[in-house]
């Protein structure tokens, strides 16, 4: 079943059109990745899906309902949750308070925190610490943990590997895979195409606001253009 279906999406910032007719879909249970260079429009697509930006035209369907003009908090209530680019944790709140914000619409139970802590033991050690004092990797874990607190059906991740050491990147991707195995559908935006393609089922390549290429992750890894442009080969 197509859980998320984006059709002919256009998004503008004033006079600048950043996304010019993007279509893609994510089936239930899949990991799909959107790869593309800086400024290709990946974050813009993610913001439009979460309702932070209103599309100029096109539709975004989640669970077969058009959500392209739905308020962000209603989109989240339906189980479509985003881990934003740059983590955007609440620096002046404790780790635990950050997690509780993730469950804002639900009311967190002790068990919900436990689940996150078992996924990220580091967060448990630091639960009383202000989130602003965490390292970059820990902040990314917190951002993912916070999103998982709402028990989403689908997780949107915008460049979760940004600025992390290779060993941490591996760890983050392992956890993304683990969430997916637990039944969460994933849409992953990445510049680290190698890692993204290694865990994804399917991929779309975005170039200046358009889908330039799409296919299974294996096909794209083998594709010469992709190799040249994104895999540094």
């Amino acid at each position, binding site marked *: 079943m197509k859980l998320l279906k984006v059709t002919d999406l256009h998004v503008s910032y004033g006079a600048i059109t950043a996304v010019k007719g993007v279509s893609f879909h994510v089936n239930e249970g899949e990991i799909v990745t959107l790869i593309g260079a800086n400024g290709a429009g990946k974050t813009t697509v993610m913001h439009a899906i979460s309702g932070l930006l209103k599309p100029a035209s096109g539709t975004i369907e989640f669970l077969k309902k058009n959500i392209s003009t739905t308020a962000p*908090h209603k989109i989240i209530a339906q189980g479509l949750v*985003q881990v*934003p680019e740059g983590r955007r944790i*609440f620096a*002046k709140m404790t780790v635990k*308070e950050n997690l*509780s*914000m*993730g469950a804002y*619409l639900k009311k967190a139970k002790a068990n919900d925190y436990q689940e996150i802590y078992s996924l990220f033991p580091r967060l448990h050690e630091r639960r009383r610490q202000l989130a602003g004092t965490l390292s970059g990797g820990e902040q990314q874990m917190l951002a993912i943990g916070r999103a998982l607190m709402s028990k989403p059906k689908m997780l949107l991740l915008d460049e979760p590997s940004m600025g992390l050491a290779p060993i941490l990147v591996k760890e983050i991707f392992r956890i993304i895979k683990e969430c997916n195995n637990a039944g969460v559908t994933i849409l992953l935006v990445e510049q680290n195409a190698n890692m993204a393609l290694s865990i994804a089922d399917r991929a779309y390549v975005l170039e200046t606001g358009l889908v330039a290429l799409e296919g299974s992750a294996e096909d794209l890894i083998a594709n010469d253009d992709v190799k040249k442009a994104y895999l540094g080969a």
Partner: protein
Amino acid sequence: MFEMFVSHLINGLQIGSIYALIALGYTMVYGIVKLINFAHGDVIMVGAFIILFLVTGAGIPFIPAVLTAMAGCALLGVLMEKIAYKPLRNATRLSALITAIGVSLFLQNAFLVRFSPNPRPFPRPAISGSLNLFGDVSISYLALVTIVVSAVMMILLHFFVKGTKMGKAMRAVSEDSGAACLMGINVNNTIAVTFAVGSALAAVGSALYASTYPQVEPFMGLQMGLKAFVAAVLGGIGIIPGAMLGGILLGIVESMTKAYISTQLSDAVVYGILIIVLLLKPSGLMGKTTGEKV
């Protein structure tokens, strides 16, 4: 000598705790939408008029009248935000600031036209007498009530902001409204609640202020609003404990200057201190030295 000092200190605490209550409204709104709500002082004036009409006109007892004024001012704050500020949320800060001044002038002049500039006596509650503390030092019951009511309000606000879901939402929106949105927080509602809470506190401040200086007129919010704004900046605008500290400090400095230096100079000293503090620590006493965020 010492006894005089203590009684000036009590005077300072009395007026300072009113400054603090009103400063909270400036600081909470600034924290969440980065707007100096210049019309906040006029909310005090509207609150005083509401209490005046309820008590003098309708014969309602003082406390229910204050509670009604809190609700009325909360509504006024929400309407102000929805009508004047919300449409400008993505505009430049200067446009928002000018709009705030416009809202302030509108309220003052609307009340001027409707109710004339003549001051009316405020129906202050009959709290007279004083409590002997030690020696010759006593505290008037009015001062005691003012300080206690303000303290209770601030403690309630503290628990609201720290402990409740809405309070956490307010902190989240003030830190990063986009991220708060992604948590499922209804940002518009959270901003409206912030205006409501700040304005309701101003209504309490108004009742306490007018009980001390019992005159109600359309421009009464100007002076008080300005002092409370200074208090908020002094403590660090956007920081709730900063507004409390700034208000109380300002009240004490003012009272001491009036007592030991000169009554005429008290405003000059107050603004002088503000300038010195801002030169040394631009983000205010409790502000972080880096950046200007909340």
